[in-house]
């Protein structure tokens, strides 16, 4: 009896130690808190502020275009649209919390735009932007269709159904601004919470940031911008699937510029460089260096940066018009894809391995 009691009580005491649900800041010696503060205060929030000011400007020019529907004002909308799209490249990777909840990324940047769905929406004047079937009928690609893709654009806006087209344009931009404000405001109000979540669980801040960063690199960047148009997943090339397809038709360098801008964002995030200037703060790079992650004599972080730079250089070497590149010499795009791809195992296997990021969600006994 006594024996059983001792055994039981010891078990309970030991089991009790497993809780750990208080709000202390934990670390493996590395200051995760400083990393989160740098990424949040110097990258994410400034990037969102910048982005939301660009989308507000875009809305203003659209309002102006609605008031005075002429080519001059449409040109202005096109310019502001591109500014906002460039700014978007800095936030797409942060698909966390509110952004994830409202499917922000999919609503903002699902391409190619679904032209026939857009036309239907315009004319029927009834649609639900929260319906996944309408993700490709809103956001930047749909604006691209509306302002750069309509043949005889200005005559349509001034035509019989012009009012409906203008109304849809307004609906698109006000939805973008509404969603953007929701996400931005949550980043600001939830900031303290976010930076103090330093434990190592599947839902803690750094784990989510890191997973989303890798997911973005693999999907939003590698696959969407280069892989899919080059036909990496389909066997045959799909040039109409490039980002900003319609704007690129007239300006020729839009898709490439957006991809290069995204590279800047990727580099800044990995090295912790501030959004507004070139000051470097705490980052995944610093974390890896702290953990002494090495790779054939060099540090893992250097190898990752070098690999990403090689990929960036490869994109730079492509024809300014990605569509032209695909149509004339797609092989170069496939080579570029391979160079982008080279960083994926480094991020997904080596970096994750060193950080020991906890993403398990079912039992495991380590085999």
């Amino acid at each position, binding site marked *: *009896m006594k*024996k*059983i009691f*001792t*055994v039981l009580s*010891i*078990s309970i005491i*030991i*089991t009790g*130690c*497993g*809780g*750990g649900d*208080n709000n*202390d800041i*934990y*670390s*493996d*010696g590395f200051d995760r808190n400083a990393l989160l503060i740098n990424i949040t205060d110097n990258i994410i929030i400034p990037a969102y502020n910048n982005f939301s000011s660009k989308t507000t400007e875009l809305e203003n020019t659209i309002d102006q275009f609605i008031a005075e529907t002429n080519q001059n004002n449409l040109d202005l909308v096109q310019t502001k649209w591109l500014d906002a799209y460039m700014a978007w490249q800095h936030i797409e990777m942060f698909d966390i919390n509110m952004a994830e909840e409202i499917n922000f990324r999919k609503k903002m940047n699902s391409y190619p735009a679904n032209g026939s769905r857009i036309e239907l929406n315009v004319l029927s004047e009834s649609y639900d932007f929260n319906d996944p079937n309408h993700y490709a009928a809103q956001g930047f690609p749909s604006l691209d269709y509306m302002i750069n893709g309509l043949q005889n654009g200005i005559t349509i806006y001034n035509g019989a159904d012009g009012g409906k087209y203008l109304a849809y344009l307004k609906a698109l931009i006000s939805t973008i601004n509404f969603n953007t404000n929701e996400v931005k405001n949550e980043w600001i109000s939830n900031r303290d919470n976010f930076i103090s979540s*330093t*434990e*190592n*669980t599947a839902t803690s801040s750094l784990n989510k940031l890191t997973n989303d960063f890798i997911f973005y690199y693999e999907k939003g960047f590698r*696959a969407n911008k280069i*892989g899919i148009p080059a*036909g*990496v*997943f*389909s*066997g*045959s090339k799909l040039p109409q699937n490039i980002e900003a397809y319609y704007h690129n038709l007239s300006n020729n360098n839009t898709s490439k510029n957006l991809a290069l801008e995204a590279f800047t964002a990727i580099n800044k995030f990995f090295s912790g460089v501030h959004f507004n200037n070139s000051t470097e703060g705490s980052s995944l790079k610093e974390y890896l260096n702290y953990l002494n992650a090495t*790779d*054939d004599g060099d540090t893992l972080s250097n190898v990752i940066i070098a690999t990403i730079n090689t990929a960036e250089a490869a994109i730079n070497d492509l024809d300014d018009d990605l569509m032209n590149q695909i149509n004339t010499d797609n092989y170069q795009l496939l080579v570029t894809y391979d160079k982008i791809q080279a960083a*994926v*195992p*480094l991020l*997904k*296997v*080596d970096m*994750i*391995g*060193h*950080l*020991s990021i*906890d993403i*398990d*969600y*079912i*039992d*495991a*006994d*380590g*085999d």
Partner: protein
Amino acid sequence: MILSVKKYINAYTDSSPLVIFRIGFGLMMLFSIVRFWSKGWIEKIYIEPSFHFTYYGFEWVKPLGDKIYILFILCAISSALIAIGLKYKLAIITFFLSFTYIELLEKTIYLNHYYFICVLSFLLIFLPLNSSFSIDNLINNKKSNSVPRWTIDSIKLMLGIVYIYAGLAKINSDWLLQALPLKIWLPSKYDLPIIGETLMQENWVHFAMSWGGMLYDLLIPFLLLYKRTRTFAFLLVVFFHVFTRVLFPIGVFPYIMIISALIFFDAKFHKKIINILKKIINPISKRLSQINIQNVKFYSNKKIIWVLAIFFILQLTIPLRHLSYNGNIMWHEQGYRFSWRVMLMEKIGYTTFKILDNDKNQFFYVQNEEFLTSYQEKQMSFQPDFILEYAHFLGKHFKSKGFENIEVFAESYVSLNGRRSQMYIDPEINLLNIKDSFKNKYWILPLK
């Protein structure tokens, strides 16, 4: 020799350890099924995926869709019946069959502890766990207060095999000389209270725990066997398993091992627990005690002894089959499963597949998330038999889509215990030409 074997087979002992083991086993199984269900894992693992990884030789085990719930219900009911000892034989056979079928359905969730439960429940089919303190006694008006010694000893032997092979597997250079993978895992547990930022970060702790774990596994069966060290050993069992539970997501396994280890205590200890149980069910047991159940002698069945002899010979040899393959077993994983190799490696992989269409002379890459859940993809990416099975699935899939003349290549990078990631599968080999077998998988590139 033969004489002493005969003498051993005919030796009898008190049956109460079997009773407590039966109740403990039944309740633990019931608990773990309810837990599995409540976490939504039935849906996630058995219903959601469109493709299931199966075991070599068991490809005929087919998913049941929503009917899988029937199997889980069957499993839960039989667990409860085992605990109370009602229709024990039928219950344990049902449990073994349903549980094993569930496990065979999806290889991605292979866990040594699930395999342990399959093996143990098979063994229990042949043991008289309902010989006393069971409902069966009331129904049959028969009980056996003493049972052959071998019945209890075979459970001890099974546990001993698990621990000793787990200990032997830890004798490798990564584990002992570099404290890997604990050196990777423990520092990442910095969010544990008190020890997280202190002990878990210390190099000596990583080594102490590696060596301690190895010695624990190798010695614990013996410490439990000897009466003098038994209580100490049991406290060690509790400490060890609860500690691993705190550190790692290993579910109910620690508790199963703790409950199982009670079998090493003598009959007196188990009788005390039975008395406590009797007091709990006092009102019923008072009435029951008035019923006079006949105490009959339990006879050993020779056939059963032969079955168990073969069973244990297999249990002793299966974990050694890796000896017939060259190279690092943690890298190529040939002979890795069913061998009590637990917590030995941190392995991460990234594997993509290239489909070459010879008719059109073009290629494309597969997006794994179209076919696999994220957990399946993670498991597939570093285990060669998964990679091969999936490659064949892709081959069949794309052939059915009209691609007649295709070849499938894997581009695979794997990192083992913190080493730099390396190419894992020969990227030049068309996996559709490879059939899975026990032959050496030459298409796995060697660990540098």
